């Protein structure tokens, strides 16, 4: 028993020291940051992450702009990663680009206020195709392609999307140009300066799984044009000069800007599915800072009021409760940093409410403790019985709130209301940490204070026990 008590105390002290190390805002050495291996390397530091409603910025929710039922599995997710690349290229700090409920993409751009610019950035979908036109077409010519009409490709097995070209029903009076590949087959592009002519070229590489088909296609069409078509408009029709396997070079006396633009379009303009915007939120940048300051003040006042309540009501056990409560706040902040949790205003409210829940568990225990003392138990016995008998109430009442949080979380995930999700996550973390704080930290401290032989004399000091 004595060894166990000592061990528990060491655990509490160790967890406290580690949490302090995480939470205290000193310059963290690199090796500490590298310990957070599960976090995205770009945001890997020991700071509390703030959500869009606190930092200000733009939130865009979009979905595939296709007829219901025609969306092909996986295309939206590849669109998502392309948008993510594009967003990362702009240098916006800590952007969020994620799937929402399977059929939507959520983009959050903290600090961005130019709504149209940001919308262009994510929406300029550019469905990119390589078309076997047979004859060179002028740049800027609008054409109808088999892919635009029926998602049909000459090489459907190589790209992630598409049906065989034979499934296209001809339309009289319209030329349907067969699409060979979509932009999906591109691995990377670059715009280097040619060493011989001094003009700029566009160099491109083909993904491994499409190389066989690309070689077959280019090999059978030497000296024929390959038209690059973006959103149904011809961009350029370079002539195929050789059988190409893993990539090639488009030469055409481009200027530096032209080459780079074509390279970027090839690279990032290749969204496999057109998108439309369903919801936009633009939050002013200074709204959040004020709200954070106010929430922190509210939280501190709430904490002080709770501490006074505990001290007045429970005296000596109350002091233990206040210490446990302080540790609860410390542990929670450490978990927020480790996860990392993105704090939103409702999220902060959820955390502050969980402080109250943490007190609840302590109150349940202290009330039981008092009851057992009144019933004539020894101090040590009352501590043990208090925790044992309060446990079912604590467990059941926390479980009911946890169930509700799970429902809230799934509701919040359904449509990108990160506010609702943030509230649920923080409340859950708060509840779990409060269980640890009440059932382990408070118990260890209570045993320490009331469990020793020298504490037995406390039994006479009813005033200190709050009876």
């Amino acid at each position: 028993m004595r060894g166990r008590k000592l061990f528990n105390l060491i655990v509490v002290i160790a967890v406290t020291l580690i949490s302090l190390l995480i939470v205290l805002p000193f310059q963290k050495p690199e090796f500490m940051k590298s310990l957070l291996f599960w976090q995205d390397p770009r945001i890997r530091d020991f700071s509390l992450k703030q959500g869009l409603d606190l930092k200000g910025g733009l939130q865009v929710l979009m979905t595939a702009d296709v007829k219901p039922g025609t969306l092909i599995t996986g295309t939206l997710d590849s669109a998502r990663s392309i948008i993510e690349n594009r967003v990362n290229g702009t240098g916006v700090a800590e952007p969020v680009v994620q799937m929402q409920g399977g059929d939507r993409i959520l983009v959050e751009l903290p600090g961005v206020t130019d709504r149209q610019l940001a919308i262009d950035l994510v929406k300029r979908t550019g469905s990119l195709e390589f078309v076997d036109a047979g004859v060179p077409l002028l740049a800027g010519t609008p054409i109808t392609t088999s892919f635009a009409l029926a998602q049909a490709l000459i090489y459907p097995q190589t790209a992630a999307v598409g049906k065989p070209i034979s499934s296209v029903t001809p339309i009289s009076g319209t030329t349907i140009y067969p699409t060979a590949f979509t932009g999906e087959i591109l691995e990377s592009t670059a715009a280097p300066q040619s060493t011989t002519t001094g003009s700029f070229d566009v160099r491109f590489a083909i993904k491994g799984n499409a190389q066989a088909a690309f070689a077959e296609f280019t090999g059978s069409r030497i000296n024929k044009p390959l038209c690059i078509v973006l959103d149904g408009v011809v961009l350029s029709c370079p002539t195929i000069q050789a059988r190409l396997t893993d990539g090639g070079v488009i030469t055409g006396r481009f200027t530096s800007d032209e080459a780079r633009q074509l390279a970027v379009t090839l690279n990032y303009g290749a969204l496999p599915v057109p998108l439309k915007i369903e919801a936009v939120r633009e939050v002013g940048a200074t709204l959040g800072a004020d709200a954070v300051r106010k929430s922190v003040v509210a939280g501190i006042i709430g904490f002080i009021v709770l501490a006074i309540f505990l001290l007045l009501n429970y005296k000596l056990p109350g002091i233990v409760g206040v210490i446990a409560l302080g540790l609860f706040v410390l542990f929670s902040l450490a978990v927020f940093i480790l996860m990392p949790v993105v704090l939103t205003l409702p999220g902060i409210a959820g955390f502050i409410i969980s402080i109250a829940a943490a007190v609840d568990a302590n109150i349940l225990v202290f009330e039981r403790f008092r009851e057992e003392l009144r019933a004539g138990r020894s101090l040590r016995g009352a501590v043990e019985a208090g925790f044992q008998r309060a446990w079912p109430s604590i467990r059941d009442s926390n479980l009911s709130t946890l169930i509700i949080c799970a429902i809230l979380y799934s509701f919040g995930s359904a449509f990108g209301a990160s506010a609702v999700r943030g509230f649920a996550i923080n409340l859950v973390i708060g509840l779990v940490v409060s269980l640890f704080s009440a059932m382990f930290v408070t118990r260890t401290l209570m045993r320490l204070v009331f469990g020793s032989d020298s504490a037995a004399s406390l039994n006479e000091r009813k005033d200190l026990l709050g009876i």
Partner: protein
Amino acid sequence: MFSIYNIVKNRRIYFLMSLMLIIPGVLAMIFNVINLPTHTPWKLSVDFREGSRFVLKFQQPTTETAIRGVFIQNGVPNPEISQLGAATENLWQVRTSFLDGAVSQKIQSDLEASVGALDKGQVTVESVSPKVAGEVTQAAFWAVLAASLAILLFVWYSFRSAPHPIRYSICALIALLHDLLVAAGLTAIFSLLFNWEVDALFLTAMLTIVGFSVQDTIVVYDRIRENIVRHRGEGFTSIATRSLIETVHRSLSISLTTVLVLVALLLFGGASIKQFIAVLLIGMASGIFSSIYNAVPLLVAWEERDLWGNKANATA
């Protein structure tokens, strides 16, 4: 008469008090369903209703007419314009149909040109398409239904060792619906009086109330379950009263801590979550009342088959 020893016996008084708390709110909700253009119990924010919402902070005082002019110029026929906060804050809200990025950008620059400089740091613009708004409303409905069902099953399961566990869960559910109705009803009244709009956070508040309301009830029920075993042969009314007395200090302490924290948030917290906190506070306060004055007396009423406490009063 209002002593804790008589709560169970005088249950009719508390049932009537609950009805009096609920009825005005329900009337307000019905009134809103009939009168609001959306035919909903509350005014809806963009989370649940398609369209765009601008919150504009001007640096100088301005007029509704001036703002309206700019929106109409840009082909927005019927903007709903209202002033938020104190008149000196120059904070305006404009609701319109769904506008895309280009139009809303142009409106903002036109406003700056012809109405007055905006405090860009405090501007919020939200646009939600009809599809999203519809789905959110649907998801909200399912969330509330799922929460109620989950609680019903959860209480049933936790009290499976007590006699008639289904009674505990249904009584807890009724106490829960009571709290939701009080909070929803008062929100409807505030919707009428102060133009409160219901957003996703309102639903969050309602679901959180579900969690905490059940928490209060479980603490008392837990003690009843324990006392049934300990005091075999004692009447249910007496066991319930005993359990109430034994836990009332605890229930009040627990609820008080939550209420204290919420009051701190309401007084000192950010403006954008004030309404959310207020709804939570109403629900929590109702939760304290219902767990003591509804949940336990209801359970007794069911066990004794005597809703209004007539038998109890006849023998007293």
